[in-house]
């Protein structure tokens, strides 16, 4: 039986003669489907009717992390000590360098700078997990724990540790009253 092509409103179906060229690793140029340059390289010359693309390796302090037709590699960022940044991954020709703020600071996208970590008020301690380059999360001390200092690094301390401290303090001072120890 005759198959009737479904009538598609407003557009005409055309049989696709060749496979689509544009893809992650290919590009169309001068009527040909040519290969892009692999990560770690840039394209110093596009393909022609008779020759393939010419790719060159990225130079020092440069990278390219995708297949590309770029005429230059990208420049690694600077982990600027003067902005309290340190290098956490030097990167290479296919992977961008990674920086993070020094201890006590976290990267703030809005000011493009390392901001001081929040200081938790007494009665609060830092929440876990403590993440590098992330601001402190202050959590109210749960029952059985306390914090008497303002700090961006201290956790809440449990009573039990401190009851022993109080006892030893009283012992030293010769007080004969024995406190009822809560375990």
């Amino acid at each position, binding site marked *: 039986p005759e198959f009737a092509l479904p009538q598609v409103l407003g557009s005409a179906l055309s049989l696709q003669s060749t496979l689509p060229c544009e893809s992650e690793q290919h590009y169309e140029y001068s009527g040909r489907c040519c290969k892009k340059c692999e990560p770690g390289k840039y394209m110093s010359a596009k393909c022609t009717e008779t020759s393939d693309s010419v790719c060159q390796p990225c130079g020092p302090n440069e990278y390219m992390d995708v297949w590309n037709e770029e005429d*230059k590699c990208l*420049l690694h960022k*600077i982990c600027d000590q*003067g902005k309290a940044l340190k290098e956490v991954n030097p990167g290479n020709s296919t992977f961008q360098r990674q920086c993070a703020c020094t201890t006590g*600071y976290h990267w703030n996208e809005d000011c493009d*700078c390392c*901001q001081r970590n929040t200081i938790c008020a007494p009665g609060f301690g830092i929440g876990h997990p403590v993440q590098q380059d992330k601001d402190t999360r202050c959590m109210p001390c749960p029952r059985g724990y306390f914090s008497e200092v303002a700090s961006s690094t201290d956790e809440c301390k449990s009573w039990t540790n401190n009851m022993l401290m109080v006892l030893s303090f009283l012992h030293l001072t010769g007080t004969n009253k024995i406190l009822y120890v809560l375990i």
Partner: protein
Amino acid sequence: NIPTGTRKVNLTSWHHDKGQANLSNMTFSDGKLIVNQDGFYYLYANICFRHHETSGNLTKRGLQLMVYMTKTNLKIRRSEVLMKGGSTKYWSGNSEFHFYSVNIGGFLKLKTGDMISIQVSNPLLLDSSQEATYFGAFKVRDLD
């Protein structure tokens, strides 16, 4: 490598072919752009200064953060400042980070052999990322 101190210094270590930097129809040598064709050029520079408290205490001290673009003419062995910009700053002690950028630009007549260079004050405070601190020139038209 960034020179130290607060004195006015010549900046020589520029990328001229990496990242966003480009060079054509001019020569770059020892931090100077050298003119190869007489003409009217538009010259510009953008300089960013930054300071983080972890680098030491700079506050409560008057700073003058400046950029100077200089033309050196070897024929008459003369250098003259073409353009300058900047600001005195008195950074308060409360913030952990301080930042200031200055931009200068102008349309000037240049001759073959003229050399264009940049001087700044307080080079240690420079933000040397490519989008922050850069300079350049492009030819707009021939001389009359």
